[in-house]
C-alpha cells in the first residue's frame, strides 16, 4: 500500500518489534525492589489498556483514517507483547498485586465502557475529522510519558536494561508517528487546532483514571521526584510545545505538579 511522506507507516507495519518471554533472561531479574515492581505493574496495566484506547478512537471519525488505523493495529500488537514481557518479569518476582479500581474508578470505567463511546461517536461525528488532531496529541502525550517512565525506571534499576531498552526503542517510533501526525493535523484548520489544544489541556496521566491516586502517585514520585529528571520532563514537554499552536505548553510538568500537590495534602 502506498504512503505519503513523513513517518513511514507502511514500513512501520512491516517491522513491528515483539518482546518475547523466551528471549529474556528472567532469572537475572529476580529480587527486584518494591518500587520497581510497583512501577512495572503500573506500566503493564497501562499497556494492557490499549484496546480501550483503540475503541475510544475507533468510535470517532478517526476510524476512517486508514493510515492511523494501520498504525494502531501494529501499535496494539507491540503493546501487547510489552505487557506480556512485563508480566513475565512480575511473575518471576511473585508480584501478583494489581491496582484495583476505586469505587469512583469503577463508576468511571462503567461510564467509559457503556455510555461515553456512544456519546463520543455522536459528538465527534458532528465535529468531523478535526477531532483526529486531538487524538494524535493525546497519543503523543501518552507515548512521551510512557517513554520517560521506562527510561527512568531503567536508570533507577540498571538490571532492567535488557527489557527496558527495546521498549524505549519501540516508544521512540510511536512518538515519531504521533509527532508527525499531530503536526499535520493541528495545522489543518482552526477547529483542529482548537480541539488539539483542548485535548492537551484535558489530558490525564495514563492509568490514573480508574485506580486510587494512592497507587499511581508513589510510582510517579519514585520515578520523577528527583530534580535531576526535570530536564527529561522538559525535553518531553518541548516536543508538545513544538507542535503548531502549542508553544509554551508543558502538560507533563503540570500533570506531575498536580500529583505532587495531591501527595502533599495526603501526607
Amino acid at each position, binding site marked *: *500500500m*502506498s504512503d505519503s511522506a513523513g513517518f513511514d507507516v507502511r514500513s512501520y507495519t512491516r517491522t513491528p518489534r515483539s518482546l518475547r518471554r523466551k528471549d529474556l533472561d528472567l532469572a537475572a531479574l529476580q529480587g527486584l525492589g518494591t518500587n520497581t515492581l510497583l512501577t512495572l505493574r503500573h506500566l503493564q496495566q497501562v499497556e494492557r489498556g490499549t*484496546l480501550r484506547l483503540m475503541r475510544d478512537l*475507533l468510535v470517532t471519525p478517526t476510524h*476512517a483514517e*486508514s493510515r492511523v488505523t494501520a498504525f494502531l493495529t501494529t501499535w496494539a500488537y507491540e503493546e*501487547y507483547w510489552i505487557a506480556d514481557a512485563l508480566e513475565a518479569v512480575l511473575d518471576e518476582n511473585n508480584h501478583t498485586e494489581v491496582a484495583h479500581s476505586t469505587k469512583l474508578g469503577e463508576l468511571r470505567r462503567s461510564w467509559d465502557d457503556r455510555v461515553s463511546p456512544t456519546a463520543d461517536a455522536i459528538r465527534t461525528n458532528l465535529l468531523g475529522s478535526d477531532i483526529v488532531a486531538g487524538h494524535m496529541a493525546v497519543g503523543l502525550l501518552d507515548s512521551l510519558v510512557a517513554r520517560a517512565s521506562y527510561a527512568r525506571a531503567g536508570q533507577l534499576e540498571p538490571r532492567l536494561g535488557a527489557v527496558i531498552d527495546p521498549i524505549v526503542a519501540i516508544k521512540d517510533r510511536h512518538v515519531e508517528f504521533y509527532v508527525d501526525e499531530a503536526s499535520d493535523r493541528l495545522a489543518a484548520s482552526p477547529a483542529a487546532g482548537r480541539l488539539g489544544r483542548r485535548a492537551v489541556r484535558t489530558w490525564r496521566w495514563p492509568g490514573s483514571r480508574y485506580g486510587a491516586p494512592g497507587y499511581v502517585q508513589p510510582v510517579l514520585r519514585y520515578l520523577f521526584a528527583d530534580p535531576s529528571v526535570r530536564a527529561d520532563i522538559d525535553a518531553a514537554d518541548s516536543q508538545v510545545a513544538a507542535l503548531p499552536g502549542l508553544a509554551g505548553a508543558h502538560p507533563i510538568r503540570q500533570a506531575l505538579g498536580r500529583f505532587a500537590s495531591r501527595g502533599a495534602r495526603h501526607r
Partner: protein
Amino acid sequence: MAFDIDKFTQDSVRVNWEDLDLDNFRENPLPPESIRTLRYMCDVEYHTVCYLRDMLVTRSHGEGEVNAFMTMWNREEFWHGEALAHVLSLHGVTVNYDQLKDRRVKLGWRDRLAPVKQSLLSNIVGKDFVAVHMLWGAANEWSAAAAYKRLGVLEGHPSLAELLRRIAAQESRHVAFYATQAKARLAGNPKAQKLARFALKNAWAPVGSGIMTDDEVTHVMGHLFGGAEGRKEINAIDRHIGRLPGMEGLTIFADALDARGVAA
C-alpha cells in the same frame, strides 16, 4: 473444543508471500472476475478494524483472553488485506490509504447490528449480546475460510493457491476462537440463543454487505459459491452454524444465495 489463546498469540504471524512466485501474474494475469472478487476480499479485510470497533463497544472485551485474541486477529486480517493488495498491485490495481479512507468516510458509522442493539436495548441485553457477536464472528470467519478455499480451487494458480491456503489457515483459527466462544456463551442460555437466532435471521448478511455495493456482493457470491460445488461449501457452513446451541435448522447462507438468485 478448547481454544488455546496462549498458543494462538504466540503463533500469530503476518501472512507471508515473499517466498511465493507471484510475479508471473505480469505474464499470466488473473481474469477480470477474479480481480473483482479479490478487490472485494481486500476491502473487507482492511475493514476489519471497523468491525473490531463494533466488538469493543458491546463489552465483548474486558476479559484477557478476548483482548488478546482481538489484538492478534485484527492484525492478521490487516495483513490479509496487505497480501491481497499486493496481488492486485501486480494487476495494476492500486489500493492505498486514501481510497480506504474515502470508503470509510462514506460509510460513516454503520454497524449492521446497530438497529438490533437499539431495538433490544443493549444495556439490558448486555452479556447476551456478546454471544451474538461471537456467533456473528464465527459465521463471517467460516465464510472467509470457505471463500479463500474456493478461489484457490477456481484459479488453480499454484502460488496464488498457496497464498490463499495460508490465509484460509488463519481464518480457520479465527473460526475456532469465535465458535468456541459462541458455543460457551449460548449453551444453557435460552435468552442468548433466542437473541442470536433473531439477529442471524433478521440482520445477518454476507460479510462485505454494507461495505460493498449489492452488485459486488452478488458477483462474489455467484463467482465463488455458484454451482453444485459452491453450494456444497455453503451448506457445510450452514451445518456448522446449525450445530451451535439453539441454531438448529438455520440456513442463512443458503438463503442468502437464493435471495441473490445464485443457482446451485
